[in-house]
């Protein structure tokens, strides 16, 4: 019960900036609507299905990589992390608390995706998408934190995580199908976590893929192991 309190305490404090500045959420809504029009106009129905998938899968990745890492960095700048270190709050409480704190974004991503999937009669795949999104959220957070923990000056954090987020979602086949790339580039390009998970999502939605399910699972397990190992070596909770 106390662990739950600790997580909720961190989550509520983290969530304040989203609640007080709801225009951030409005930005997500505008992004969804804009891309819906854009992708339908240029790519037809398959592109719209892809949008519904990437809203959850890539949205969660960006949230983990960019926002969770930036929240941690912000707490470092404000020295608030030290108040949490000198308390019963553990690293996992703090980490889960931050993820839950920014989950208003997740809810909006899921809701936007759900509306599109409902219209396309694909709503049954939403639970699987959310599961993939959670994997992406955790992986994104881990990789974001690994980058953040190597930054000596925490004011530079967004200068690292923003380009990293763009690089990992715009260049690899996340917004576009991997099948348009020639072999073996189509497989190599899918090594980045959001692209791998999008391949799984596309497979579930019945869209063409370049990776087999076994290849996707192997890559994801590899990333989880690598990120966990790197983070466990880098991440300290006080006592630096």
């Amino acid at each position, binding site marked *: 019960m*106390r662990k739950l*309190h*600790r997580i*909720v*305490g*961190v989550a*509520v*404090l983290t969530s*304040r*900036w989203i*609640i*007080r*500045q709801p225009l951030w959420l409005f930005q997500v809504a505008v992004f969804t609507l804009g891309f819906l029009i854009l992708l339908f106009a240029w790519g037809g129905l398959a592109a719209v299905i892809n949008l519904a998938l990437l809203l959850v899968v890539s949205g969660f990745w960006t949230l983990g990589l960019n926002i969770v890492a930036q929240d941690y960095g*912000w707490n470092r700048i*404000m*020295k*608030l992390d*030290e*108040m*949490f*270190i*000198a*308390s*019963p*709050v553990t690293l996992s*409480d703090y980490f889960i*608390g931050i993820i839950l704190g920014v989950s208003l974004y997740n809810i909006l991503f899921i809701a936007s995706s759900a509306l599109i999937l409902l219209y396309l009669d694909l709503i049954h795949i939403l639970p699987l998408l959310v599961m993939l999104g959670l994997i992406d959220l955790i992986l994104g957070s881990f990789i974001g934190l690994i980058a953040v923990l190597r930054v000596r000056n925490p004011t530079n954090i967004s200068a690292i995580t923003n380009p990293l987020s763009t690089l990992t979602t715009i260049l690899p086949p996340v917004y576009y199908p991997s099948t348009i790339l020639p072999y073996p580039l189509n497989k190599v390009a899918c090594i980045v976590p959001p692209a791998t998970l999008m391949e799984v999502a596309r497979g579930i939605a019945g869209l063409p893929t370049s990776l087999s399910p076994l290849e996707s699972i192997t890559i994801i397990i590899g990333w989880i192991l690598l990120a966990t190992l790197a983070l466990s070596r880098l991440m300290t909770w*006080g*006592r*630096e």
Partner: protein
Amino acid sequence: MELFTLNSEGFGLEAVRTVGLGKKYGDKWGLRDATFSLPRGKICMLLGPNGAGKTTTVKLLATILKPSSGYAEVLGHDIESEYRVIRRLITYMPQEASIDNNWTPYEAVKWYLVARGYPYSNASSIARDWLTRLGLDKYRDMCGWRLSGGNKRKILLAMAIAPESELVFLDEPTSGLDVETKYVVWGVLRDVARDGRTILLTTHDMKEGERLSDYLVFLSNGEVIYHGWLGDLLGKFPYKYRLLMEDRQPVNGLPSIEVGGNRIVYLRDLDEAGEFLGRRDTWESVKLEKTSLEDIYLNMVRGVEYA
């Protein structure tokens, strides 16, 4: 292991005990070979100029930093092997911390209490109580961006003292506060200590040290140069008055120190002061004052000189 120490009020458990504690940043020592102990249930102060090692000491004891050498116990627990236990028993207010501008004072204190494991209803009433005691009740639901820097410091202070921690670490909690607010904060800290909780506070303000502390640790250049009871220290200092003169030259036969282009002459009593001033042609640029903790510190660090 419980340790006992003899102090001027009898026996009591120690809040902190360090032996040869040190922290190295690269090849430079931030704190070196620090050995001292602090009594429980008192206001203890780490005093020293900027860069003396005060923050490093507090961060080591609050388990934010890992020591490079030595040993320390906080509330009877080893900071190396029992840091998780220590973290449940302490609170810490960092020196340059600030609350998030999107937090209200009430949210900050309440949800920090919840994060420390307090049930929601208790956290609400405790938060309200401490905000009232610190004069923040009328700002309770205002967002951080509408609050002054001083009020933000008080919110952090409320976050640090509202949990019923046995030991409260406060790193320069009154820096940037106006005089009136300082008195409010000092009053609250005395109440906290009266409840049997220990406060370890850092400051470079010697007046604050003299007015508030029970027990002192003087630091200079990363080393402990004195630790003991304030009363004992003040009682032992032989000079009761000082003359602040806009003159660099030493005075014949009297101990003095040159500080920032001025000379401070130390005198044992008013008779000695009268005798000295009687010998002077003019009293201009001379100010007679009672000696304070600042003079004791200067004497320790600089040592007096005789002409």
